[in-house]
């Protein structure tokens, strides 16, 4: 059903994937959409793979995004972006943090981390905008802002205006003081800019079909 938007948010347990998806869901609800959001969260806290599905539109039935049907892939970690590449539609966009998180099985030498996960995604035909969200967050003073940087990055690739999403992000910090709101405002803007810069250097940006 083409009137449903499918957003897949992926990463590693502990990265704040579920919170980010929840904020995206709140933005969609604010615009009057029906929404379903799902993930398998059982052991996510233990550094395992996390994928969170968000579907919104006039009426959402099944909560799961089928392989090949994600409109946007938002990846908080490079190899995790690669892991879920097959979920993307042919014309979908992947927004990827270039940061790596290597699990113990890689440290122990049992498996290898891909040398160039983003290159491999592009080779498979995916449209990818990559940027270092971790560096941006650190520059702004706190790695925890990375979550907001990622949401800023997706903001101009949704079927609604970036301001709606920004409002939902900042609402989360409404009771936590002006300083935190301001930091997140900056992080959101920096994420938007990172994705826009990546679009300029890494390929022509096309809006997601609304």
């Amino acid at each position, binding site marked *: 059903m083409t009137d449903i938007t499918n957003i897949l948010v992926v990463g590693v347990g502990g990265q704040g994937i579920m919170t980010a998806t929840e904020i995206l869901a709140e933005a969609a609800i604010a615009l009057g959409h029906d929404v379903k959001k799902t993930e398998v969260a059982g052991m996510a806290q233990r*550094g395992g793979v996390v994928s969170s599905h968000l579907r919104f539109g006039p009426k959402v039935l099944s909560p*799961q995004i089928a392989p090949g049907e994600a409109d946007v892939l938002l990846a*908080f970690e490079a190899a995790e972006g*690669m892991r879920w590449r097959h979920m993307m539609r042919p014309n979908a966009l992947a927004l990827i943090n270039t940061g790596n998180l290597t699990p113990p099985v890689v*440290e122990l030498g049992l498996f290898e981390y891909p040398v160039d996960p983003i290159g491999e995604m592009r080779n*498979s035909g995916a449209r990818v905008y990559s940027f270092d969200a*971790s560096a941006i967050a650190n520059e702004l003073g706190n790695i925890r802002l990375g979550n907001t940087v990622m949401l800023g990055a997706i903001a101009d690739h949704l079927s609604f205006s970036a301001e709606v999403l920004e409002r939902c992000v900042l609402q989360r910090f409404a009771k936590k003081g002006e300083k935190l709101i301001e930091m997140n405002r900056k992080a959101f803007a920096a994420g938007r800019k990172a994705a826009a810069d990546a679009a300029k250097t890494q390929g022509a940006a096309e809006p997601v079909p609304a």
Partner: protein
Amino acid sequence: MAAVMPAPAQSRLLMSGNEAVSRAVWESGVKVAAAYPGTPATEMLEVIATYPDLYAEWAVNEKTSLEIAFGAAMAGSRAFCAMKHVGLNVASDALMTLTLTGVAGGLVIAVADDVGLSSSQNEQDSRFWGRFAHVPILEPADSQEAYEQTKLAFELSERFQTVVILRMTTRICHVKGLVTVGERVPHVAAGFKKDSARWVMVPGAAQKRIPLMFQREDDLRAEAEITALNFVDSGSDRRVGFITSGPAYMHIKEAYPQAPVLKLGLSYPAPFEKIRAFAVTVEHCVVVEEVEPLLETEIKAQGIKVIGKEILPRQGELAPHVLKPAIGRLLGEEVAEPEKKPARAIAPLPVFPRPPTMCVACPHLGVYYTLAQLRNITISGDIGCYTLGFGHPWNALDACISMGASMGMALGLDKGRGESDKDKKIVAVIGDSTFMHMGMQGLLDIVYNKGNVTVLLLDNRAVGMTGGQDNPGTGRDIHGDPAPRVDFAAIVKALGVKEERVHVVNPYELPTLFKTVREETKIPEPSVIITNQPCVLVDHYHGLKPFTVIDDKCTGCGNCLDTGCPAIHVTKRDSVVKPSGKTVDLAWVRIESSVCTGCGLCVQPCAPDAIVHADKVIQIKALQRH
């Protein structure tokens, strides 16, 4: 968690299935709610505990939680308990007889099946319990239905004086959707009425209740024929029609919006007349259910022609992309969805696995590091974070089946040892919460029957795997308020373990831990080693000064990697040929100081003393919350 003001009626809220059930429990005027944590059911009691005007508790196991809820229902109050699928196995002893007594106040069990096995040891289908215990099963398809069916479940429970099972799955419990909520209606407890013929299930009394139970089941089947929970969506494309329940309904509506569907909200007892009437209206009638072919088998036994698991998987979750190829083949079509071709899906790219790991500085790391050093031992494991000890780098857990089973399995491994296992040391590993849940009886058996087992009781003062819930070992109740705290050393001594065979050790002190485990495994008597450091995820954990690696001093021995701490990362690999001719792999490391909590575990096996306190924490390079 303190009680908060619930959102007003008519609010439209983004709620998980667990949150929706919790809201409905509160609105239904429930007085008593109890549960033992278990994924994916855990959040129900966590959320219920935040509502005012009811009693909520963490019970020590699922059987206790059901007995507590049943007690409240005998007193005429409305009562609720929640559990994961395997929890109902534990509670089933109570269930199988309280189905005879029935209830006075409404009693609802929400049971959460882990379809797809995200965090469980099996994938059993809890709908069997409806058949076994002759009680009704309700199956919501999303959060809104979970909310509505919970409220209806209390009405059904009181009308038919039976416990009602609300069957959830992971994709109901953890999916968030919009729910319109309502008002709370207080429920007045009728008070306990003495009636030994009803409440005292001795054989003579139970015999008289059995026909009543069967009559009730017949009445419920008649109800299933007329209830609005079981409805038909008439569709225009009659080539295939579906009979379904639970989350599968949404997948069918998504994949086949034009197909007729008979949707069973009250799926047991099944309405056979309704099903018979529906089946003749379509060319192919397909039963779509997760996991077992229960409805299908019963419908076929009625002589109604349907198709089910011949074309659909019996394991794992259903989804539109699972249904489409199966139904497409049934209809002799290449593509089942006529209006468009499916998206051009590509094969997944190969990426290393990322299994769940123990946390940075987890107190279990030292235990498994130690167990991995010991030879000639068999390690009987249990359910919890420490089950992860079976994985790399420790490979130090040899068996795991169910809560508390480490004790009995260990005793059986001891008593059943063959000649080849004659000198094997038998070790059982169990967590604090699991020990209280179902492990204590097993230890009593080990003591009573003079087993030669060394028990490692890992007391991390939390139900760790489900998110650090409180238990009788934490000294706090479900609201975080002070509660009596159990003394594990005193318990195991009371169970008969000799005073000198009970040790409390700090699992970060590797030499002491190693020496204690080695010595106790040599002594052919039951012994218990209790580790006493808290879970790093609970609020009460305080980290120490982090460590770093002096690059020039690191020799690449890789000993620190054997702890399995995820804060240690390899920077360079090499291999050297020793004078003996043996090739040794080397791995130089760094410590992610920004996530290190200074537990000091890795410092101890480091041969060249290359790990020192970090003066300055280097900025974290990876995007991760801590």
